[in-house]
């Protein structure tokens, strides 16, 4: 019974293995959704491609690096500018996009010359930029363009530049998750250990799996500065290319997003003996616990307690104001994977919010083990959910607010259910103490927005009733 075949899935019964309804007395030994598996024909997946996982999620965040996308222009455009990861150097990564703009003739006759020319052009146009990542895409992978050989030639012509190649076309895996994997492993194989970082503190960490969405990295950096902890590399929020080449010198890897970057943390542990500490950076209780653990590792517990006390004094009253008004709100989380397990208990404990449905685009079974352990009974846990399933689930659990991406968000807005951008945030940052107040504020403004009722007004007779009902 707890694996659920929705009415809309009656013609694709394989979907039953991907949707779980938790009931009391069961655990992940009994049921665990299939995940990181190919999308079933007949379902309209919300997933991205593997190239997107490498470029949009991880590589494209870097603030000093040309992102040369070897493929048709759409691959570049669709992985540019949508994620809102600012930088402290004027948002270089958000301002520019680079592509070899492959056309039919290049596919027929090969694109390596065009790639080489594009790489030189990009460096010539931006003489201050000396770092580049080159990505292959579906068509250039299929025709066998050797981007590594081209990168080698360009580095030979330009001794002052360094280039990383990421050979992860869109079809490499079942979702964007494969792109995370390929970039992680490629980077640790080829680039980690090639730069010696300047060490400025007795305490050094890498902060892994945080992409400065809405300024998350910059907010957390204030904490590390107060604690006297040097972050050798943020992987990859607000980071420079060369920061990530010195990751081997950190004493501790602190991991937030274990899905997109757990691979490099595991490899750094295996190859360099750097231990891996997984934390939750969203939520008061979790953030305090993460700071305490990092400080315990370095033996600077008093500093950590002082920081936590200071932040609680500043932000807890505001959090409590929102908690009072959000208590009992029913929330759905339809994002990538890890935010399901990062958020479900933090919104419950810190805001009194009940999470009634969660869907993951690219989570693996490890993510479902975590979220089912943390989430409530009576909640739906969905892998690779599709549009019709979302509508059916909405009817079953009736959420007051949905944290998801703009595509699904636009759908649910038509039902007069408010959505918050769960990927790039509405008004972030959302991490840390201040960030979680921001999340609470956005949720409060969404749920209590008077426009929800006003926008449901329809003078055309019977349709008005439907719209008003949806808004109530």
């Amino acid at each position, binding site marked *: 019974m707890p694996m659920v075949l929705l009415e809309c899935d009656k013609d694709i019964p394989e979907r039953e293995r991907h949707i779980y309804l938790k009931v009391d007395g069961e*655990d*992940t*030994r009994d*049921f*665990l959704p299939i995940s*990181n598996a190919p999308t079933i024909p007949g379902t309209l997946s919300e997933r991205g491609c593997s190239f997107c996982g490498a470029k949009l999620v991880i590589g494209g965040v870097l603030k000093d690096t040309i992102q040369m996308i070897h493929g048709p222009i759409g691959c570049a455009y669709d992985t540019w500018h949508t994620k809102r990861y600012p930088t402290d150097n004027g948002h270089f990564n958000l301002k520019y996009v680079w592509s070899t703009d492959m056309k039919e003739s290049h596919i027929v006759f090969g694109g390596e010359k065009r790639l080489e020319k594009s790489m030189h052009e990009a460096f010539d146009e931006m003489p201050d930029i000396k770092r580049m990542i080159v990505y292959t895409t579906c068509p250039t992978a299929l025709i066998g363009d050797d981007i590594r050989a081209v990168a080698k030639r360009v580095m030979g012509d330009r001794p002052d530049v360094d280039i990383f190649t990421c050979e992860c076309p869109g079809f490499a895996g079942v979702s964007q998750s494969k792109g995370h994997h390929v970039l992680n*492993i490629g980077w640790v194989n080829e680039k980690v250990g090639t730069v010696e970082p300047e060490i400025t503190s007795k305490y050094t960490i890498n902060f892994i799996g945080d992409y400065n969405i809405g300024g998350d990295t910059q907010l957390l950096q204030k904490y590390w500065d107060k604690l006297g902890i040097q972050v050798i590399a943020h992987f990859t929020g607000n980071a420079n290319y060369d920061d990530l080449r010195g990751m081997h010198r950190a*004493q*501790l890897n602190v991991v937030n997003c*274990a899905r997109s970057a*757990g*691979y490099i943390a*595991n*490899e750094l542990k*295996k190859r360099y*003996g*750097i*231990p*891996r*500490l*997984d*934390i*939750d950076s969203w939520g008061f209780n979790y953030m305090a*616990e993460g700071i*305490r*653990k*990092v400080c*315990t*590792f370095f033996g600077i517990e008093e500093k950590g307690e002082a920081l936590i006390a200071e932040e609680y004094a500043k932000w807890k009253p505001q959090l409590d104001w929102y908690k009072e008004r959000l208590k009992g709100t029913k929330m759905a989380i339809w994002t990538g994977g890890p935010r399901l397990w990062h958020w479900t*208990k933090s919104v419950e404990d810190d805001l009194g919010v009940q999470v009634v449905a969660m869907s993951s685009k690219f989570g*693996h*079974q*490890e993510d479902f*083990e*975590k979220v089912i*352990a*943390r989430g409530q009974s009576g909640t739906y846990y969905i892998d690779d959910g599709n549009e019709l399933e979302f509508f059916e689930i909405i009817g079953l659990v009736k959420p007051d607010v949905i944290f998801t991406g703009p595509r699904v968000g636009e759908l649910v807005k038509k039902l007069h259910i408010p959505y918050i951008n769960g990927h790039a945030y509405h008004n972030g940052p959302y991490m840390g103490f201040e960030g979680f107040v921001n999340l609470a504020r956005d949720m409060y403004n969404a749920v209590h927005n008077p426009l929800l009722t006003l926008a449901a007004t329809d003078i055309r007779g019977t349709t008005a009733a439907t719209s008003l009902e949806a808004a109530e």
Partner: protein
Amino acid sequence: MNSEKLDQLYTYVQERCLWQFGSRTWDRQESIDGVLGTASDLLTGKPPALETPQQKLFYADAKALVADFKAHFPWIADAGPAQIRELIDGLKAKLVDITITNSRNGELNHSLY
């Protein structure tokens, strides 16, 4: 062993602790042994091992866990060393069972990360 008390600890750890959910079988076993072994030391008054970076990390996780146990389960302050060791051993066994032995996670034994 008091199974009610063991269940309280187990439920708390399952819901709270990320260290039990490492990527692979060996990561999970190492963390469960390391964190709970250190927690047992802390709860029974033994000095924890702090020689290697990994031991320091086990200590960091265990210290937070022990503080939580004491805050949520006041009875633990009255438990003697033998009872603590028995409970922690039972907790280890339950966690190994759900996260390793009977886990349905198909990626746990892949040789590569």
